[in-house]
């Protein structure tokens, strides 16, 4: 891929926004998270550590904001003047939202973050030079910078712990921005298997690590193009549309009936993750 070819045929390499004339054809991966089911148990976060070779950085580095949880549980206390224990909490798993018009993509000086044909926001580690511009531009703060050379100098996987690393995912080195990939290693395997059998990936055939471990089944993941997919049905019943920044829920008459929303939609990032509003009172 010569740079002249890349520049002359930029439109071929750059995936278009779905509201443009090139919508997603075969796959558009999307997620929905039911906050009513989420108990804030952190299993998704732990599964992500195991699946994606994330380093456990320790208390001190965590305090400096150098942690690497690609999916984190945000915690919100009820704001009605009660003290802790009776205060009640709401949980919200926050991960890369795989925005269609991702603010991180446009600012990368080396094009290390791109949009794939499947509507994923890709991060290519070996191209990243660590400017952290994408992180500065991400409204969800879902990108994590690797400050240390974890595999070698900060020996977080001492022998024989390195044996449990996932061979389908790179062990990232120092100076690289990383983030949730929707477990792209599983997606490529599922797509390849389906292609060998001459069909598309079926709904439920591929799961992300966080979805797989969620004890309450709060996370659903699938192909939005597939009319039979659970995620697509959820998006449809909640009347959430991918390329809109004002949904039916935003109108006064529908607000009470519909639960689905996307975070910071009004920034027009068109995220691929839909959250379902919490219904019940908080646990206590």
């Amino acid at each position: 891929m010569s740079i002249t070819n890349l520049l002359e045929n930029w439109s071929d390499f750059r995936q278009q926004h779905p509201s443009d004339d090139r919508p997603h054809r075969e796959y558009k991966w999307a997620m929905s998270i039911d906050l009513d089911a989420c108990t804030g148990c952190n299993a998704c976060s732990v599964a992500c550590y195991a699946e994606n070779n994330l380093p456990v950085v320790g208390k001190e580095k965590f305090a400096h904001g150098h942690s690497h949880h690609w999916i984190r549980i945000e915690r919100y206390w009820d704001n009605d003047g009660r003290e802790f224990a009776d205060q009640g909490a709401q949980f919200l798993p926050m991960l890369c939202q795989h925005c269609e018009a991702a603010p991180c993509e446009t600012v990368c000086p080396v094009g290390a973050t791109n949009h794939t044909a499947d509507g994923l926001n890709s991060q290519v580690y070996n191209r990243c030079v660590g400017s952290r511009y994408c992180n500065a531009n991400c409204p969800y703060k879902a990108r994590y910078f690797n400050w240390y050379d974890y595999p070698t100098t900060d020996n977080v996987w001492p022998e024989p712990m390195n044996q449990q690393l996932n061979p389908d995912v790179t062990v990232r080195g120092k100076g690289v921005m990383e983030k949730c990939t929707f477990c792209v290693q599983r997606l490529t395997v599922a797509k390849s298997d389906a292609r060998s059998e001459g069909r598309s990936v079926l709904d439920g055939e591929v799961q992300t690590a966080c979805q797989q471990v969620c004890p309450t089944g709060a996370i659903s993941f699938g192909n939005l193009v597939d009319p039979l997919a659970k995620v697509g049905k959820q998006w449809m019943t909640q009347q959430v549309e991918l390329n809109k920044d004002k949904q039916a829920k935003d109108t006064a008459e529908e607000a009470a009936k519909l639960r689905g929303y996307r975070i910071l939609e009004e920034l027009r990032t068109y995220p691929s993750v839909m959250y379902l509003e919490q219904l019940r009172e908080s646990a206590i």
Partner: protein
Amino acid sequence: MYCFLRLSVLLVGLIVSASSYAANAVQPLTTADDLGPKVEQPIEFPHDRHAGDAAKGGMEINCMYCHTYARRSIVAGIPPLQKCIGCHQSIESVRETPRIKKLFEYWEAKKAVPWKKVHDLPDFVRFNHERHIQRFVFAQNKPVQEACGYCHGDVKTMTVARRQKPLSMGWCVSCHQKDHPVDATSTKTTHGPNDCWQCHK
């Protein structure tokens, strides 16, 4: 005189440093003729004898007889020693040759042959053998040795396999940009994907 001495000291220093640099220099990824580094194998496996044309003394064994995982997995795989022995225990004529003797030494010691990797891609690259074999051998009906040989070179003429192609990203993409027929009969063509996450991980 003093001036000469200084000059000669400088020259010697230069030569020594230059030669030590050359000795420590990392072997370039590709040399002028796009040949990879020579890899010393524990047993010099003669690919030409096994896969080569019958007219040249080869046995025309299909690549996938030994690299059996290529058609159904990401990696092509190296055959287990059992597969070598399976044939060789009934081939009496070569039983006493040094290489086969070595082979049986490994077998009797119950040790795998520690073959060295010749086509070693970096950790951040994902290459799927199955995808390419399914596409070119099974869908397009290309001869196996041509399909495999596109990336691995003309292995059937080699003894110990050596990397022939650069296997760089630009080289991969140059093929992904070409239009390949979908199958042996149709005129429809498609090219390979160009999204980064297809190959990078």
